[in-house]
């Protein structure tokens, strides 16, 4: 939920006319430097605090993730992966999971409800819960398994990238609170440059495959990672190496649906003209009399 009145919208779910977009926006991005993260979960706390969310108390099942998964009330989550490197040493990889704010958002494409999902000119993808009908198609369209449907109100929730804070010139709450500077926020182009620089520094320190994660399959993202093992993003709790909108979603929504609407309307029109041209098949009068 946001103050979209002060932000320009470049894309709106289930809408075929242009969205309000006369104002100019600067694309923003959040950069998460995994190599600097200590797994303190302050970002999770800041997210809960700023958004007035308090997730249900769960149970300890012996892992570091807390809560166990993203939920309608937990919009960001530190995921911990224990990975063995080639020399057999254990490495602890920590990734702050949450909405990636794709430039080409699968959730928005899959959503059937007008205006339930919007994309601002600054790149933030936001759910407007008052327009949400609770069908769950956003979760179906998302390549990162992020949206969660609330059991309480059947609306979809996820990270807003603090669009309410960004709209008034503040950085997101998780960025503000991060004690190690692992999360930074700024213009997208600056963050890409900074991420590349950080990946270069990591390479100098022996992480040969360090890289910026800004996947092109979804048009780039407005939440990016610097990964020590940039060649194997899957190591980080299954971060997809080449995320893209499933062709099942994009082909159907993009091409086939308009054609199908045309086909159904066309069938009715064709029937009408067939009747006007050929006329009805009638019982002949003669036979009626003879019967």
């Amino acid at each position: 939920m946001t103050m979209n009145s002060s932000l320009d919208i470049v894309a709106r779910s289930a809408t075929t006319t242009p969205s309000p977009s006369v104002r100019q926006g600067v694309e923003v991005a959040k950069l998460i430097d995994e190599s600097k993260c200590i797994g303190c979960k302050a970002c999770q706390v800041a997210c809960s605090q700023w958004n007035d969310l308090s997730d249900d108390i769960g149970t300890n099942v012996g892992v570091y993730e807390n809560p166990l998964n993203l939920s309608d009330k937990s919009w960001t989550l530190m995921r911990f992966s224990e990975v063995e490197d080639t020399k057999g040493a254990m490495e602890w990889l920590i990734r702050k999971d949450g909405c990636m704010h794709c430039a080409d958002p699968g959730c928005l494409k899959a959503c059937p409800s007008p205006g339930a999902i919007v994309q601002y000119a600054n790149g933030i993808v936001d759910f407007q819960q008052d327009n949400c009908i609770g069908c769950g198609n956003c979760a179906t369209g998302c390549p990162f398994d992020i949206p969660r449907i609330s059991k309480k109100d059947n609306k979809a929730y996820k990270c807003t990238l603090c669009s309410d804070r960004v709209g008034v010139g503040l950085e997101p709450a998780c960025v503000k609170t991060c004690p190690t500077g692992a999360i930074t926020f700024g213009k997208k182009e600056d963050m890409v440059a900074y991420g590349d620089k950080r990946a270069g520094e990591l390479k100098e320190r022996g992480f040969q495959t360090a890289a910026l994660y800004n996947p092109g399959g979804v048009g780039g993202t407005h939440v990016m990672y610097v990964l020590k093992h940039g060649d194997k993003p899957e190591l980080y709790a299954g971060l997809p190496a080449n995320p893209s909108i499933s062709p099942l979603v994009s082909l159907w929504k993009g091409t086939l649906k308009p054609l199908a609407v045309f086909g159904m309307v066309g069938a009715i029109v064709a029937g009408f003209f067939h009747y006007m041209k050929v006329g009805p098949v009638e019982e002949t009068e003669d036979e009626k009399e003879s019967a």
Partner: protein
Amino acid sequence: MKKSNELRRYDDSARMNHWVIALLFFLAGLSGLAFFHPSLFFLANLFGGGAWDRILHPYFGLGLCVSFLGLFLRVKHENAWNAQDKVWLSGAGEMFKGNKAAMPPVGKYNAGQKIVFWFTAASMLILLVTGVLFWHAWFPHFPIWARRVGVLLHALSAVVLVLTVIVHVYAAIWVKGTTRAMTRGTVTSNWAKMNHSLWYEEMTRK
């Protein structure tokens, strides 16, 4: 009451079954088309808005499938495909021109009607199975890939069903004397002789 020059085509229960299906088809169809394309989202207003539309649609669909099962069991034997159907189908072009006389004699259902029947049955089965895959309120735990396949096949088979019903309704409007089979249960002997001569013979032989 059936008059002397009339033949009974459907008994009361078959007709009521048919019309329950018809009503549920329109409820499920209109509520579902709202999600199909933005240009049709206004249909959600018929059902109290998007959220209510989302809540109701699966129940309409379930009711549709259950009620269709009744009719399916009732008439499936009469819709079995036979050699005459192939002949009828090869001459379907003449039928489209309204040249009824050129068509070979048929039994209770012609090949076109049988195709409508089996397309309806197949698409409804696919709609039921795939609809369950993403009925979030009751089945929230299907994997995402299954829901993606489900949504796609659900929409595709819905298009098939809608087109099939358009053909079905048009045929009933086009061939005069047909709709009374479902509204009154009877047809005239003339109609039967002209459109379903083998069925006419079968009925009058009794």
